[in-house]
């Protein structure tokens, strides 16, 4: 539309842009501060550090046993991804294709873990897992992380599945495809892009998921983010640069998968919003 050229309008537009730019600048500066500090020999109140070094990375790697932490993180995260993927896609398929009595209740049940913050449901959940003897174990961490990931996969997959014309499946059956055939040759290839998107997003979210893992993890089953927390928590003991080096390792891990995920999805989908039902 032909833009309003008035002065007030221009000032307003400028103010909005200034605000947004300020926010982005501060945001990038916070991230940069971590990175810069991790390479600093000493940094006390000057614009940039006195000198540069990579020694903190080596010391952090040893101190925080990062090689095992990273390994554990990936073991946990990939297990979560696989489990929530299998459970999520089957559930999403059923929800997308069938209407049944009580469906709205079921959908609500899957929505709740995404609406309620993890800590609210995490404490009773962690307590239960401890009672079951899963406290501090690998499976305890995996299970607690599947709780928000499964609904997320379901929510992301349902629109994908709805997009596939059900008549394609009917056509396959008319041509003699049994259920396994149908699944392997028709559905799986069509679903692959959606599944990839959903699973990559689950991966990124689980690496960054702090509260749930924190509640259940033991010393050998901490993910990177939990180790980072403990390091910062006890930061009087260790050098700040070393902690920041660990933070950078964490950041690189997360961003690596984020970049891959962004090839397939829109950034907005990481913020899984509960889709409003069509009309009340």
């Amino acid at each position, binding site marked *: *539309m032909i833009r309003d050229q008035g002065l007030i*309008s221009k000032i307003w*537009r400028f103010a*909005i842009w200034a605000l*947004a730019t300020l926010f*982005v600048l501060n*945001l990038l*500066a*916070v*991230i940069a*501060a*971590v990175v810069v500090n991790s390479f600093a020999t000493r940094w006390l*109140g000057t614009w940039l550090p006195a000198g540069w070094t990579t020694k903190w990375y080596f010391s952090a790697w040893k101190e925080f046993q990062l090689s095992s932490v990273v390994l554990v993180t990936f073991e946990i995260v990939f297990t979560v991804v696989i489990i929530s993927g299998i*459970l999520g896609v*089957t*559930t999403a*398929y*059923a*929800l997308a*294709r*069938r209407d*049944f*009595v009580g*469906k709205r209740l*079921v959908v609500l*049940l899957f929505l709740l873990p995404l*609406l*309620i913050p*993890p*800590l*609210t*449901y995490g*404490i*009773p*959940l*962690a*307590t*239960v897992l401890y009672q079951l003897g899963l406290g501090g174990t690998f499976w305890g961490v995996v299970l607690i992380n599947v709780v928000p990931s499964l609904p997320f996969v*379901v929510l992301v997959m349902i629109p994908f599945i709805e997009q596939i014309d059900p008549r394609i499946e009917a056509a396959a059956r008319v041509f003699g495809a049994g259920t396994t055939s149908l699944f392997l040759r028709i559905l799986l290839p069509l679903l692959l892009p959606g599944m990839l998107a959903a699973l990559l997003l689950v991966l990124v979210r689980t690496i*960054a*998921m*702090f*509260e749930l893992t924190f509640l259940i993890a033991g010393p050998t089953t901490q993910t990177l*983010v939990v180790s980072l*927390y403990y390091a*910062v*928590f006890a930061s009087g003991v260790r050098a700040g640069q070393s902690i*920041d080096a660990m*933070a950078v390792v*964490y*950041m690189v891990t*997360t*961003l690596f998968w984020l970049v891959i995920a*962004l090839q397939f999805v829109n*950034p*907005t989908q*990481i913020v899984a*919003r509960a889709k*409003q039902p069509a009309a*009340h």
Partner: protein
Amino acid sequence: MSGPPLRTRLAARGLDGTTMLILPGLIFMIALFVYPFFYGLVDSLTPKEGGWYANYAKFFGDPFLYDTIGATLWLALPVTIINLAFAVPVAFRVRLMNRQRLLTTILVLPITLGTVFVADGLLTFLGPRGWFNHTLLAIGILDNPIKLTNNYWGVFASLLITGFPFAFLLTLSYISGIDPAIEQAAATLGAGPRQRFSRVFLPLLVPGLAVTFCLAFVQAFAVFPSAVLLGAPAGPTRVISIAAYQAAFEQYDHSLGSAIALIMGGVELVVVLAVLGGRSFFYRGPAGGTKG
């Protein structure tokens, strides 16, 4: 002869083999979400000592405990209001941009990196010798560095950084969901930019903004690592999640911990209901347009 076989009758109701596919996921959710909720509920009502109400009495009787509600609200409400107040005008401008992707990608970073990383970054950035204070001193706005870490303001900043992108992205998706022809129609009927916003966009956005507020508030209310790392967890930023965690895992009183978690959920629910109740004064229908 009896009617159609049971299978067919069930299928007509939508229950067949495919529907059964929800069972694995459903069983998982019931076992690991619904059951723990009820377990926690019962647990909170069976305290270590005292009657069924003992945990709640203890919570509301001890200022160290019940003040956490106020402290958390004092953080979560202003931050959410500010985040939403800034998200709306910015999203309104951005919807007209062609290349939104760069901006949305940058804004997704704090959400992806998470609160722990952001807290760590802010400790350096907002510290007395960090860039933030440094810049303000250099420009001349300040004479002495201000204390922004290990207090309310550090946590506030952290909630801004992780909360604003969330509110912004949600608002943007709601704004983009409004049929652009509606704005064009309003313009041809004589509505200037301000009138288009107040008479057309705002009423259509209110339901979405209410939902965004609720989601953003709930996220902010559950603040935990930033309050510990960046705040003063024994003092002004002793948020309710800290109280719950300490009860359950430091004092090993999981009954009290469950009770506090439930109270936390309860406060969130009250605020959410209040906001959603308020929005029903406005329009509540689809905003996509008038085609079915």
